[in-house]
């Protein structure tokens, strides 16, 4: 009972942060399961991908209903993210775990730097149709990388998609967050199918996380219109530095 409640609490934290920041919440779920609970890394990644599907579906339903997501940009970028996710999840089947953990940490630290730099140019505009979208080539390239990272590490890919959309494509932060949320579920599902086929997915581990993430996503998406974009990006950057450092410490400490 206690284990199910703790898993639901992790899911709730991941869901609320995911909805607020345009990420899937995997950056919370994977380290929590693998570092705190000792769940095998690939099983943690697989459970995280299921959580991301639930988180994205719940929060993006609210965004899409309000017209906050740019679906035209989303479906084009999904071509790249899904291709990347299929490749990444296939590679994750034979990649060494310490290498995956180090990559996870590096991705978290890189994203923290990108978000901190991009914080000054963050726009609070929430109009999904008014902005002029440019930079499709870097946007698609970043989306492919985001998909591959999602499949490898179970992080949803918002970590790379958000800087790609806000910095390279000029999409306002809140529109990018809503569009990213819409895309993340599709990307994560592609990766999750591959983990499921390999037998790395434990539905009983994923179920309480899903319940928590649903409640958290509802809370986060209702708070988003009232919170300032710059502070959100700054807070998220600091969280990523902490999680990335924790993961590096764990891998290097384990190697000694």
């Amino acid at each position: 009972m206690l284990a199910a409640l703790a898993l639901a609490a992790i899911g709730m934290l991941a869901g609320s942060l995911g909805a607020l920041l345009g990420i899937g919440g995997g950056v919370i779920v994977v380290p929590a399961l693998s570092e705190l609970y000792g769940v095998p890394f690939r099983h943690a990644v697989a459970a995280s991908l299921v959580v991301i599907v639930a988180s994205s579906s719940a929060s993006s339903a609210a965004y899409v209903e309000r017209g906050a997501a740019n679906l035209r940009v989303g479906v084009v970028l999904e071509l790249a993210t899904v291709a990347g996710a299929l490749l990444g999840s296939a590679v994750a089947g034979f990649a060494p775990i310490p290498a995956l953990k180090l990559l996870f940490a590096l991705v978290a630290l890189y994203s923290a730097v990108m978000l901190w730099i991009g914080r000054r140019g963050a726009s609070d505009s929430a109009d999904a149709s008014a902005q002029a979208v440019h930079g499709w080539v870097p946007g698609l390239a970043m989306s492919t990388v985001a998909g591959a990272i999602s499949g490898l590490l179970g992080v949803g890919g918002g970590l790379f998609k958000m800087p790609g959309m806000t910095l390279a494509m000029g999409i306002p932060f809140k529109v990018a967050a809503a569009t990213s949320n819409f895309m993340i579920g599709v990307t994560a599902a592609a990766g999750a199918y591959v983990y499921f086929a390999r037998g790395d997915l434990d539905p009983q581990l994923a179920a309480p996380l899903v319940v928590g993430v649903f409640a958290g996503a509802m809370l986060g998406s209702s708070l988003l219109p009232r919170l300032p974009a710059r502070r959100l990006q700054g807070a998220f950057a600091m969280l990523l530095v902490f999680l990335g450092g924790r993961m590096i410490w764990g891998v290097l400490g384990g190697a000694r």
Partner: protein
Amino acid sequence: MNRAVARALWAGTLTGVGLCAAATLARALDLAVAPRLAQLGVIALFITPPLRLAVVAGAFWREGSRRHAAAALVVLGALLVTAARAALL
């Protein structure tokens, strides 16, 4: 279009989350049905992204945005092939 996509998202999500909640409760009560409920919940969540893509593709097609409809259909095709492979293994 937004309303149709949102409805598809809500339908899949609420079914999946409902089954996962039932699985969590059943696990807490040590009921034998818990693993089956969890599996059904995950499958319901797995169906949601392809469902949403089908709705988006249809909506773009009706609006005359053929290129966006084609993009959604390509992604849908990739998901369905991967899902079918996962189900068969």
